[in-house]
Structures are given as C-alpha cells and as structure tokens.
C-alpha cells in the first residue's frame, strides 16, 4: 500500500520557509545579540533536513544539488580570509573592524568584519550537519 504524505508535504513546504527565514534573522542578529553563524547554520540545516525527511533524499538532491564538502571548504576559506585581512593593516590575526553607516531606508546599520566571519561559520555548520546526517542515513540503503 502506498502511503499518502499530503499533510506532511503541505506543512513542510510552509514550515521550512518559516524556519529558513528565522534562521537568517538569527544569523544577522549575532554577534551583539543572541544568534550568529553557528545557531543560524544549525537552524538552516534543520529546515533543509525537514525537506529531506518529508520528501525523499533523491528528490531533494535534485532540487538542492549542493556538494557539501565543497561548501565546508568555501566556508572555512571565507573565515580564514576574514581573519587574514587584518594582517594587511599590520594588526594581529583576527582583529575585527566595524563602522556605522547611515543607509537611506534601513537607517543606521553596522558594517563589521565579524559578519563575513560568521558567514563562513554558517556555511560550515550547515554543510557539516547535513553531510553527517545524510551519510548516516544513506548507510543502510
């Protein structure tokens, strides 16, 4: 008998978007408020994982054709390069810089080197979480 997953699929489509957008909110909320790359990354991973669980690994793999090891490498590279750029100014590795700017619509925003650093961590966390889970999930098939 073929089970019908209509309810699950419908809810997943909505819920995964809510989780995704909240994870992006969390990502930008760091580093002065609770949030940041690690938590945002985990939450994004959980949204994607929900898709993998409720649909099918093969199907989702077609929709999101990411090569996770490459994402891990890119994320780490972004992090290292953010740290390295302080060497250009003659400061110690990982020194962070920030500046406040007034942007017409958004008002005052803070631009900081912690953001790309967090982006790197975000990518690494998303990719590692999914890579581990998918590797284990595929193991018995």
């Amino acid at each position, binding site marked *: 008998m073929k089970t019908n997953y209509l309810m699950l699929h419908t809810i997943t489509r909505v819920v995964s978007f809510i989780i995704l957008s909240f994870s992006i909110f969390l990502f930008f909320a760091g580093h002065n408020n609770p949030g940041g790359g690690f938590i945002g990354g985990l939450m994004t991973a959980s949204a994607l994982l929900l898709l993998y669980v409720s649909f099918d690994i093969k199907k989702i793999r077609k929709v999101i054709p990411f090569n996770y*090891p490459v994402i891990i490498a890119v994320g780490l590279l972004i992090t290292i390069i953010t740290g390295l750029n302080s060497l250009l100014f003659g*400061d*110690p*590795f990982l020194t962070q810089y920030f500046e406040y700017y007034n942007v017409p619509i958004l008002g005052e925003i803070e631009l900081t080197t912690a953001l790309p650093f967090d982006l790197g961590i975000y990518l690494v966390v998303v990719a590692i979480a999914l890579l581990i889970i998918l590797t284990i999930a595929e193991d018995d098939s």
Partner: protein
Amino acid sequence: MNNIVLLPVLIPFLVGVILILFRNQLPIQRFVSGVTTLGLVGISAYITYLIYQDGIITLELGNWPAPFGIVLVGDLFASIMVVFASIVAAACLFFAFQTLHPDREKYYFYPFFFFLLTGVNGSFLTGDIFNLFVFFEVMLISSFVLIVMGGTKYQLRESFKYVVISTFGSMFFVIAVALLYSVTGTLNYAHLAERVAEAAQQGQSGILTVIAILFLIVFGLKGALVPLHFWLPNAYFGPPTAIAALLGGLLTKVGVYSIMRTHTLIFTHNQDFTLTIILILAGLTMFFGVIGAVSKFDFKRILAIHIVSQVGYMIMGLGIGTTMAIAGSIYIITHNMIVKTALFLFCGATEKVTGTTNLKKMSGLLKTHPYLGWLFFVAAISLAGIPPLSGFFSKFALVLGGLEAERYFIVFVSLVVGLLTLFSMVKIFMYVFWGSPSLSPEEVKKTKVGKLLIPGIPLVIISILMGILAEPVYLLFEAAANQMLDPSIYINSVIKE
C-alpha cells in the same frame, strides 16, 4: 606583537582547506602539499632563529590584551618542537606519495594531514590552556581520520578503542581545565603561573597538586606513559606506514611537550611531590616499554612499542629537573622524532620489499638491498644510543644530569633500558638483514626501493649531524631549558605591565 609566530598554525590550516577543493586532482594535491611542508620547515627554522636572537615572540590574537584574550607564545622550546614536527611531517609526506594507495589519498588524506599539523603546531605555540585543549582536539580528530583511513577490519577495531580512550582523555582534560579555572580564575599560561604561585601560598596547595596530577594523567594518556600506554602499540600497527610514522613521530611528543610545559611553568608549587611521581612514571615507562619491544617479533610492532619506552626518557629529564636534564629531555625528544620516523619509514620500505612485517619470515636483505640495510643500521644504533650519533649525546646529557642530581636509581634503569633497546634493534637487524636472502633474484628486480629511501635519508643525516655537532645543538637546547626553568621570562613577555 608579531604575526610570524602564527604562520606554522595558519599555513597548514589554509592549505588543508584549499586541498579539500582539489580532492580528485592528485598531482595538484601532491605538489601543493610538498611545497607547503618544505616551506614550513624553512619558516619554523627562521622563527626559531628570531626567538634565539630576540627572545620570546608573542601574538595577541584579535588585538585583545594578554590575560583576557588568546595569545600565541613562541619560546625556544616551542619553536624547536615546531621545526622538528615540520621536518617529520615533510619526510612522512614524501614517503606517502610513493606508498599510499590512490584511493586513500583521494579520501582527504592531504587535508587531514595538514589539519593534524595545525593541531600539533597549535599545541606547541599556544599560550592558553583552553586553546591547548582545542588544538588537541583538532589534532586528535584528524588522527582519528588518518588512523582509520582505508577501513580494514583490524584498523576499525583498534581505532575504535583509540577513539574511545582519546575521548575519555579529552573529557578528563576539560574537567581538569574547569577545576583549574575555578581555583585560579584564569586560563592564560603566564597568568596561571602567577595565580597558582599566589594560591599555593594561601593554603590551596593541596587542590592544586590534585589538578597537577589530573593534567599529568590527561597528558600521560596522550603521551603513552606506562599505565596508560596500552592503546598505542595496536593503534599504530594498523594504518599504512606513512601514517603510522607521522602519528608515532608527532602525537606522543605533543603529550610530552604539554607535561613539560605545565610542570615547568604552572605547577611549580609542590615539585618535591609532582616531580617524584613523574620520575617514577618515567622509570616504569621506559622499562615496560622496552620489555614489550624485546618480546615481540614484528618489525612495525617493535617500533610502535619502542615509542612508549622512549617517552620514559623524555619525561625522566623533567623529573630530575636540572638545566642539564631538561636540555637532555629536549635533545631526546627531537632526536626521537627524527630517528623514530626514519625507522618507521625504513620499516615501510622493508614491508614493500618482502610483503610482511614478521621478522621470522624475512632474512638476508643486506645482500639484496644494502642501502636500506645500512641506513636502517645507522638509525637503529642512533636510537640505541651509540656514539657519535644523536641518541648518544641526548642520553649522555640525561644520565649526567641524573648523576649530578644524585638520582642514581633512575640513571641505572635508563642505562639498562638503553642496553635492551640496543638488543631489540640488533634483533631486527639480525632477522631482517643477516642470513641467506629469502627473496629470489627475480623478486628483487621487481621491487625497487631506491626512491622509497629518499625521504629517510635526510632524517638519518640530521641524526648524524645532531651527534657530530652536539656542542652547538646542546647549547641551543640548554638555552631553551634555561628559558623554561625561569618562568618569569615567559610571564613577563606575555603580560606586560
């Protein structure tokens, strides 16, 4: 502030990350990693030179001042260790090019090789005990991957034990760090040294001694001191020789380094007790290690168990605690990294020729492969401590230091162990290289080992040079020992008033 001390940690990390992207392009991976390791040897030698000239180099990461932020501290001992770690890594890498199966190479061997190096160099250079834990983890996780790479049944079984034991050790490590933090309220080495001295005067000496022993257990587990060594011989027997040589040359030394660092810099409040414990452990370690080696009849296994025995010598110098003995300790650590790796590489070459590591199944290689035989011979007698090679002078400094400090019993044990070391090395030499050739001439022609010996030759040359140039080498190590025995130099260079 000087970013150069960061390079031995950062370069392997960066290169390892980049190599993930080139997983399937083996020529690129090999070329990049070869150039990087050779570059690392050069850079770390230059850093050592700078430190020898101008004193300790510190780097406050992220520009946060010392006791609050994270610091990297390059003193002479740490930088010497980084130099030798880089040399060992380079030799193993060039050996891996020729012996490792391409499937294993493609399974992220090179990235994890460099992550391991990141962890090792980071452990040497960090000036913060929690970061020591972090770098230990980086190193251990990479070593888990390397040790299980290939996934044979034996490897899976032994590396499972290795993983469990290491994780258990790491747990103890965190507990010890937490305990230390709750007593002193800081994690920075230099700050810890000050606070521990203060706390010991205020009557907290007892709990601090407990913490010191807890750290000794943690590092002893990683460094394979005798009651805690049982995981090592089997775990290092499983993986391919290039990887076994790398792990055997580097991992235990990081444990030993940490013991020496914490017990010369931080836990100096109750040395009568802690150093006596270390001395007892040293005696047990070298004796039981060498007994294990004498009883075995397998090339690779004997070498693996010998690692344990040599660790005993390394902490013996610390237990004696005089300048000469500690200089001898540094001498024997560096000598051992070089020679042990060389022996492992020659073992790998022998395995390639004969297809086995069982001593009883091979004989007469000296007639068919004379270069291999004599190179092994030089490395083996260097390990056993025959003059004029590096092993002799390192043990000489240790024994002389022990006699001056009137620690006659440990000196006696170390000399007996030296004899048994010689015995086990000669046993290998007799079984493998003497006798009538076991291989037919056709088989000999098929297996060429000339190229396999190239990574080992520089190591043997270094061992010979460290023996012939014992005077300047010893002076360098003595300077490092003096730096270690006077913690105020370290403290003042990290915490500036």
